[in-house]
C-alpha cells in the first residue's frame, strides 16, 4: 500500500523543491525575503556632492534600457533582457529574461538636468548630483 503512495509523495516533494528553487532564483543575491521578486536590486550610495544608484544588469540591450528622472526625488529604471537565441537542448536555465521596471525614491533632491548614467561590465551606475539645497554646507564660525 505504501508503495502505491510513494510516487505521489515524491511528486509533492519535487514540486515543493521546485518552488523553493524558484523563490531562491527570484532573490539570489541578497537573501532578504522582503526583496523576493524585486528586479533589479539596487544600491544607493552618496558622497557630499552626489547620489549613486547602482544595479547589476548583465546582458541588457542598451536600446531597451530607460533611465528616467521622474522628479527631483524619483528615479525610474526600466528595460528588457532578451531570451537566449541559441538552438539546442537546455540543461540549465537560471538567468532571467523579460521586462523589468523599478522606481526608486531618492533620499535627497537631485539636479535632474545633470544626471548621468553609465553601463559598464553589465553594471548600471546612475550619478545624480545633489540639488544645491541638499548639499552639506560648512558654516563658518565667526570669532569676535
Amino acid at each position, binding site marked *: 500500500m505504501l508503495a502505491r503512495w510513494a510516487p505521489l509523495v515524491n511528486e509533492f516533494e519535487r514540486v515543493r523543491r521546485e518552488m523553493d528553487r524558484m523563490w531562491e532564483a527570484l532573490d539570489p543575491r541578497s537573501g532578504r525575503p522582503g526583496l523576493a521578486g524585486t528586479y533589479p536590486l539596487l544600491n544607493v*550610495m552618496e*558622497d557630499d556632492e552626489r547620489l*549613486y544608484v*547602482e544595479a547589476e*544588469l548583465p546582458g541588457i540591450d542598451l536600446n531597451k534600457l530607460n533611465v528616467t528622472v521622474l522628479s527631483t526625488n524619483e528615479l525610474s529604471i526600466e528595460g528588457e533582457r532578451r531570451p537566449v537565441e541559441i538552438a539546442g537542448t537546455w540543461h540549465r536555465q537560471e*538567468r532571467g529574461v523579460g521586462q523589468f521596471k523599478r522606481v526608486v525614491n531618492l*533620499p535627497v533632491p537631485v539636479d535632474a538636468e545633470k544626471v548621468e548614467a553609465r553601463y559598464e*561590465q*553589465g553594471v548600471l551606475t546612475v550619478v545624480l548630483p545633489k540639488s544645491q539645497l541638499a548639499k552639506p554646507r560648512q558654516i563658518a564660525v565667526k570669532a569676535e
Partner: protein
Amino acid sequence: MTTQATPLATRETTREIVFTPRVDILEKEDELVVLADLPGVKADDVEVKFERGELTLHAKCSPRWTGRRGLQTEYGIGDFWRTFTVSEEIDSTKISAELRNGVLTLHLPKIEQVKPRKIAVKGE
C-alpha cells in the same frame, strides 16, 4: 551536467564573500554553451579551468564603492565561483570564452568521435 558542492575552504578566493553566478547551459550537436552572469567583472579577472571532466569558473570582482557611503544596500559584491561536472567528452584545447556586458559565454566543443555521425545505410 550537474553542479557540485565544494566546501568553502577549498575555494581559491581573494575575499570572503563568494557568489554563485547564475548560468544557462545549452547543448548543441557539436558543443556545450555555458552563459554566466558576471556583472562588474573584467575579462582579465575571469579564470576558466577544465580538468578531469570538471569545469571551474572563478571571477574576481573588484570593489567599486570606495569613498561612498551606503544609504540603501540590497546586494553585495564579491567574487564569483562555480564548478560543474561535465559528462560529455570535451576537447579542452578548443574551449573558448568571451565576456560581454557582464555575461560570460563559454564554448566547450565536443571531441570529434562524440559528435553524432550519420551512418549511411547501403541498399542492395
